[in-house]
């Protein structure tokens, strides 16, 4: 229950989704997800919203304007929002209505005489270009790379952005050419370029600072996330165990079992092959369930089940195959036997990987027994260990005597010599 609380407070801290806020759709969108988002927000079919935008476009381009403004001011839906299902028919409808809206804008503008067709067409071209660039910005924002317009979308993204920019430029130039003379356009262009260069030069320090701040911000965010992860881990594991230990204080065996289990878990988290304290470099090699890991896991299970300490040391390591799996199973059985019958608090396990064989020793300093006096109906050693080993071509040696502890030695030849 505490876990659930924590879970909740953590998600709240990260992203608080206000219920009455409009988001643009992330998937299933035709242009920028504005219509979809608005439809989700108002609870009406997306088709109506699109028709409304298209029709509004006839009123002096109000629909296009509204769409653009909503695009700018409404944020994209959070990444984990459930994606709405969109059929190809709806997509076609959307594109049809979009064309209709643009056509209406231009057509109505031309008819009403406020703008002539030339101007309207150039405005339309500029708008399409702007839409291309903005869409790409949305995409790269989604990819969360550097926040730049280009993002990491590769060459096609670059082409799209450049194409968009080209369209915008064409639209503006053709608009200028239509309304003022060509000579003035040259002058105007020069002036604009000069002004842009001037602005760029003047704002260099500001850009630099923004890039740096962005880096700082990202580092801070990573640190915060890291801290939250550690806190969550400590909470889930250590604090819980400490609470359990306090409750079980009058049951020493149980306390020991909890403490051992927690220690092993934390140790694995800190120093294990894929653990927190390891660099990323070592992790992949050890992911495949190697002998060392499986021995560690088997020891841990025996520790947990029987509330004893299993001191395990593995020298060398190798991939697990069928024979070695049998070896580990046999070793586990030997540990279980020691835990059950030896009457000790500690069992030592030692595994050594050599070029041609793998050896495992399971040893306790407990009661020991007389191997010849084991009743016929006790099959643990006979079947699980000896049988398993011999079926796979291994061998087992047993050293024990009453009062002198027990040592099970398991030898298994390796299938192929490692190169």
């Amino acid at each position, binding site marked *: 229950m505490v876990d659930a609380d924590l879970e909740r407070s953590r998600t709240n801290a990260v992203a608080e989704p206000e219920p009455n806020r409009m988001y643009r759709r992330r998937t299933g969108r035709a242009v920028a997800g504005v219509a979809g988002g608005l439809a989700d927000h108002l609870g009406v079919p997306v088709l109506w919203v699109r028709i409304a935008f298209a029709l509004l476009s006839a009123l002096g381009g109000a629909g296009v304007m509204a769409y653009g403004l909503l695009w700018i001011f409404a944020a994209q839906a959070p990444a984990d929002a459930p994606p709405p299902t969109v059929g190809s028919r709806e997509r076609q409808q959307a594109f049809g209505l979009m064309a209709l809206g643009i056509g209406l804008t231009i057509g109505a503008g031309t008819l009403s005489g406020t703008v002539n067709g030339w101007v309207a067409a150039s405005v339309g071209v500029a708008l399409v270009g702007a839409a291309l660039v903005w869409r790409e910005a949305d995409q790269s924002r989604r990819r969360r790379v550097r926040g730049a317009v280009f993002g990491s979308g590769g060459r096609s993204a670059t082409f799209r952005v450049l194409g968009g920019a080209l369209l915008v430029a064409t639209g503006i130039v053709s608009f200028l050419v239509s309304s003022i003379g060509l000579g003035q356009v040259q002058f105007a262009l020069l002036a604009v370029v000069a002004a842009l260069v001037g602005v760029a030069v003047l704002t260099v320090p500001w850009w630099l600072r923004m890039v740096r701040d962005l880096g700082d911000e990202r580092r801070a965010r990573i640190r915060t996330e890291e801290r939250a992860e550690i806190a969550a881990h400590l909470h889930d594991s250590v604090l819980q165990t400490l609470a359990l230990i306090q409750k079980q204080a009058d049951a020493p065996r149980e306390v020991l079992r909890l403490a051992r289990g927690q*220690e092993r878990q934390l*140790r694995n988290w800190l*120093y294990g092959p894929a653990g927190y*304290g390891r660099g990323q470099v070592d992790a992949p090699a050890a992911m495949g369930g190697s002998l060392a890991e499986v021995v560690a896991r088997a020891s841990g299970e025996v520790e947990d089940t029987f509330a004893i*300490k299993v*001191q395990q*040391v*593995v*020298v*060398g390591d190798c991939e697990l195959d069928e024979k070695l799996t049998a070896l580990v199973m046999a070793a586990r059985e030997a540990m279980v036997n020691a835990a059950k019958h030896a009457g000790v608090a*500690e069992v*030592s396990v*030692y595994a*050594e990987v050599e*070029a041609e064989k793998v050896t495992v*020793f399971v*040893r306790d300093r407990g009661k020991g027994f007389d191997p010849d006096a084991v009743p016929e109906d006790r099959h643990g050693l006979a079947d699980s260990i000896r049988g398993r080993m011999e079926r796979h071509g291994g061998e087992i040696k047993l050293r024990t005597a009453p009062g002198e502890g027990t*040592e099970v030695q398991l030898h298994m030849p390796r299938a192929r010599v*490692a*190169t």
Partner: protein
Amino acid sequence: MSEQAETPTEKRPVRVYLVDDHSMFRAGVRAELDTLTDDIEVVGEAGTVGEAVAGIAHLRPDVVLLDVHMPDGGGAEVLRQSRKPHPEVVFLALSVSDAAEDVIAVIRAGARGYVTKTISSQELVTAVLRVSEGDAVFSPRLAGFVLDAFADRPGAAPISDPELDLLTPRERDVLRLLARGYAYKEIASELFISVKTVETHVSSVLRKTQLSNRYELSRWASDRRLV
């Protein structure tokens, strides 16, 4: 050890200095050592590297029980600052960490042994007395690491100094038994040698671990910037 316990008056107790940044753990070890034996006297404790270096210089203990993980460089830093001015002080590393680089790093920085904090009180007493006599103390885990480091893998780096870079078969046998959880006495009877000989082998292995340039050892140590 039992002979010493019977005649504590003949021999002055081993003076032990505790270095650990957890005061709770220091208190626990102190209580254990005080109640369990008269052969060991805890003369002081420190919670930081600076305190430890000053305390060791002032008190000149016989044995320093050294935590590996502490702020400001940890046990290795204490070793680096205290070993040269006080070569007679013996260090026994005591840590919760089982990571190879931690273990090998403190050994190569000069500790005479390494035991984990989950060691039983009686074993800790034995370990302290043993290092105070100049012997080395290997936990099974450390024995495993050293065997691993000296393993003859195909493709391993060429041996530059056979005297330091190779273990003798006997040393290997002793280490294997240590890793299997055998006590020195048990190793001695297993290999038909005396406990003293076992100690000699272990000390020799310790020396090789500290001085050898084998790739694994220097890699583990360099992970802690200790070469």
